[in-house]
């Protein structure tokens, strides 16, 4: 009988006890995929430079009016991939039948991966190289070696820049 009484008391206590709230949860997994492909984008601004007339004795090296030229070589490649920027002149500076050798044009470069150089119409010249992906910003200051040998004229030429990302 005493056990019944104790049991009754316990039952009474349990009945009076607010029920324990059972925590519930649900989880779901989302899979996320992303594709990154190789690509390259080259920006040069401005795209035209001009060397003014100057006395060879006073100004043996004529800076371009547009210096500094901004170069942005953006590449996506593998982490070990080496991208390159080269330039190749399409000829000498020409004014009618008069020429100024394109090798008289040179540049100094600033920015990670960029290098100084001299124009050539025979072989592509290195402007810069980089390992891995990134946006590679640089500046180039062009100059023309001045000379009394140059004939009067308005000379012009184009140079092709090529950015390659493997």
């Amino acid at each position: 009988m005493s056990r019944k009484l104790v049991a009754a008391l316990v039952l009474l206590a349990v009945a009076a006890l607010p029920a324990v709230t059972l925590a519930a949860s649900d989880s779901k997994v989302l899979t996320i995929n992303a594709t990154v492909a190789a690509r390259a984008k080259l920006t040069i601004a401005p795209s035209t430079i001009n060397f003014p007339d100057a006395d060879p004795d006073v100004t043996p090296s004529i800076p371009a009016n547009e210096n500094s030229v901004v170069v942005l070589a953006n590449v996506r490649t593998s982490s070990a991939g080496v991208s390159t920027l080269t330039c190749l002149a399409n000829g000498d500076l020409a004014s009618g039948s008069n020429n100024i050798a394109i090798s008289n044009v040179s540049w100094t470069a600033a920015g990670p991966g960029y290098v100084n150089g001299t124009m050539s119409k025979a072989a592509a010249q290195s402007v810069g190289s980089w390992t891995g992906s990134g946006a590679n910003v640089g500046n180039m200051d062009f100059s023309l070696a001045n000379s009394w040998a140059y004939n009067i004229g308005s000379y012009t030429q184009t140079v092709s820049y090529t950015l390659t990302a493997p």
Partner: protein
Amino acid sequence: MTHRGHEVVELARFPKRSRASSFIVLLVLLSASEWPGELGPRATEAATITLRLTPSSLAFPDASPDVTPLIGPATVMVSVKAEGSPGYPWVLTLLGNSDLRSGASVIPITAISWTSSPSPPFNNGTLSRVSPILLGTGIAHINADLRMDFMLQNSWSYNVGSYSATATFTLSGP
């Protein structure tokens, strides 16, 4: 009368120490109703919790960072069904389980963000692999379809590859 009297007799025979113990147990159990935390409003079973993703995967295509600085949206519909009550809210979180990886190459999972609709009760946010991000919470019953538009921050710094990661939605309630 005899029966009741018998009971009284039996109670009187019940050891005093046992009676005292039973009384203490009763008091403790009764006082438990004042405990905070896991003890709460009367409920005999766990509330209904349902979480469903459609689709359960999303993909960000390749794109030029200059043309498309944010890739997407990649949309996921999240069906949320939960019950809450004052002091016992439902909670929906999202946790990135890792960064996006392609071999040794990594895109931080924080490059992925989302906008939620409807908002409120759901929040916009940016994925993290460090701590769960609160997507929403409430104390009222909810049965809603959450639209999440995911965007990937594009960058020239990403290496070429096919990246993958997972993120876990967790809906919990009282």
